[in-house]
């Protein structure tokens, strides 16, 4: 009985009941759940019934978009290669700061940065040893000062960083409780002295309802620039990420997915949503909604290609999509009439895609918008930042311009990804 072409209250409520449970069991904070559910309810009531789509699916689509809005856009690390940057990791005890600091150092070094790890935990037994071993294992220098006086360590580290020509210093601070005023003040002090470009909350992904108050307190005290969630290799759903975003509005930059130095991933909002909602009856519906949404995006992208508004940023997105989908281009399937189109083998070559993405990442915003300005010296810098040869940058730029012209000459696609 779908009267007046709107979703019925009954349909809405029965769908929302299950979604609410999924969110709560996924450790999303109750306040956030209530807020989201009531907004979805409001929107669902206004929505016209689409005959071809089940009401539950319509409700999930609204919720999905609501969650995507809360989770926001991905944000890269703020690191300026021309100055000395400080990155400060803060958080509750045992949530993964020390391990994450080494993962970040590793990540930044791959981007061509010279990174120093600075132990700043004078409390936990063997905190410095832990960092020394982890850094040493990966060839990342660790500042080794015998002083346990924060001011002295900062002063000495400053000099060492300047003399050594470092780009980034990562500060591994001691674990602390958000309700402990005195130790929270210590953080403020360090922040005022160093003016870090990033102050990241490192939070255990298995944390429950308390994530909201923890995130709020740290953010109020020292104004975070973002967060990294760890232990996403556990089976925890990770709803705490939503609680964090909801209360701070700050970006979640990475997820920790293991104890080793390379076990870090760039945060992907979609994957989080399917992780939380991927349960029981709603799973298939969620998957269907995801497909629809990504199809819509592909169509938009295809339109951009056709209109010639396709930028290097879009190109990167598309490359990442190839990687995820194991080689099938979603754009291509939306471009008009491609006779006998064969999917090139190279599209599924992870290594090569990684290389190309690294090159795009290594460019400045300006260069990404207008690749024509990339001259010899820029090319050298980009290559260095991405850890590739100059020649590779040339190949990428050529590939890109070919891709842009794709709409006219699709058969060319086979040639595009021929990296040497």
């Amino acid at each position, binding site marked *: 009985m779908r009267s007046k072409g709107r979703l019925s209250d009954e349909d809405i409520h029965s769908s929302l009941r299950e979604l609410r*449970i999924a969110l*709560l*069991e*996924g*450790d999303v*904070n*109750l*306040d956030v759940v209530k807020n989201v559910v009531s907004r979805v309810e409001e929107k669902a009531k206004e929505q016209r019934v689409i005959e071809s789509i089940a009401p539950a699916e319509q409700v999930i689509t609204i919720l999905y978009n609501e969650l995507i809005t809360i989770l926001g856009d991905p944000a890269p690390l703020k690191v300026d290669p021309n100055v000395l940057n400080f990155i400060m990791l803060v958080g*509750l*005890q*045992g*949530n*993964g700061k020390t391990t994450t600091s080494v993962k970040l150092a590793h990540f930044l070094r791959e981007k061509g940065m010279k990174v120093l790890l600075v132990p700043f935990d004078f*409390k*936990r*037994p*063997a*905190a410095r*040893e*832990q*960092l020394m*071993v*982890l850094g040493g*294992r990966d060839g990342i220098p660790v500042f080794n000062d015998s002083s346990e006086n924060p001011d002295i360590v900062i002063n000495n580290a400053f000099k060492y960083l300047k003399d050594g020509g470092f780009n980034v210093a990562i500060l591994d601070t001691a674990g602390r*409780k*958000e*309700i402990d005023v005195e130790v929270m003040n210590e953080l403020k002090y360090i922040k005022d002295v160093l003016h870090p470009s990033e102050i990241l909350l490192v939070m*255990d992904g*298995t*944390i*429950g*309802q*308390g*994530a909201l*108050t*923890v995130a709020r307190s740290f953010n109020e005290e020292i104004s975070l620039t973002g967060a990294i969630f760890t*232990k996403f*290799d*556990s*089976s*925890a*759903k990770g*709803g*705490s990420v939503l609680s964090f975003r909801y209360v701070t509005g700050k970006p979640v930059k990475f997820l920790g997915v293991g*104890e080793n130095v390379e076990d870090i991933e760039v945060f992907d909002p979609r994957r989080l949503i399917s992780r939380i909602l991927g349960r029981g009856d709603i799973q298939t519906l969620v998957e269907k909604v995801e497909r629809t949404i990504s199809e819509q995006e592909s169509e938009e992208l295809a339109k951009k290609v056709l209109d010639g508004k396709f930028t290097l940023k879009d190109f990167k997105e598309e490359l990442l999509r190839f990687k995820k989908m194991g080689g099938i281009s979603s754009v291509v399937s939306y471009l008009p009439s491609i006779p006998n189109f064969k999917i090139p083998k190279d599209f599924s070559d992870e290594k090569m895609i990684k290389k190309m993405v690294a090159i795009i990442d290594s460019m400045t915003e300006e260069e990404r918008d207008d690749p024509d300005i990339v001259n010899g010296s820029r090319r050298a810098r980009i290559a260095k930042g991405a850890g590739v040869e100059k020649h590779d940058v040339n190949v990428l730029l050529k590939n890109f311009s070919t891709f842009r012209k794709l709409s006219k000459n699709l058969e060319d696609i086979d040639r595009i990804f021929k990296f040497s």
Partner: protein
Amino acid sequence: MRILSKIKCLLTGKSSFDEIEDFLLSNDFGVDFTSSILTEMKENKINSHNLMEAFKDKVEAIVSAVDSSMRINNIPPTVYLFVGSNGSGKTTTIAKIANKLKKNGKSVLVVAGDTFRAGAIEQLSEWADRIQVPVVKQALGSDPASVIYDGLDSGIVRKVDFILIDTSGRVETKKNLIGELKKIYSVISKKIERVPDEILLVLDAYIGQNALSQIDIFKEAVPITGIVLSKFDGSASGGIVLPIIQQYGIPVKLMGTGEGIEDIEAFSCEKYLKKLV
């Protein structure tokens, strides 16, 4: 927040089921446990003014149905094994317990069974030095079962009263690490010719619903005898332990109440409730 809602209850005279539901959900008790408690209260026709009292009674009933005392073996050494997820507080808890036992005139030996995590051996050793108890250790990367065997050997030769065994943190999804735990368990049981006197799962009080999966998987590998609720000094109360006690019959035995060596207590239902409501 809690006080405000209580005042609101007093003013409106309405301590409703909705409010108790919110209270339970926002303290990590979980959807199933919360709805079962509410159903029970409704069936028992609890007056809406007495919901909080009824809740407290319920908690007391659940907690007192299990034995929360620490087991001690008649013939020393008593052997405790500590397991759990990464960073939950195992190593610190061991130091605290060793200290407490020593202060009560017992001889203690600790075993650095975490041979994986960088700095783990040094961390336990530093604690052991501070409180002056012997530690048995091997190099980073060596086989944990072998260090533990050595530790038991050494403890038995020295005739210590207690042997406390540390292990690496592990998340429940890592099959090989859970398998490693099984091996550790069987090595200990063979060596002492009985099961360890306590196998304690250390749970961080901030943990959410993942605690249930942790219990499910860990208890398949080793017979967990109790829980240590660590970081109880923080803002979280570890609501999830109640469904765990009820569902699995596994008691909470100790609470960690700080980073200091003295910060450990026997689990007290009273303190637990006091923090919660």
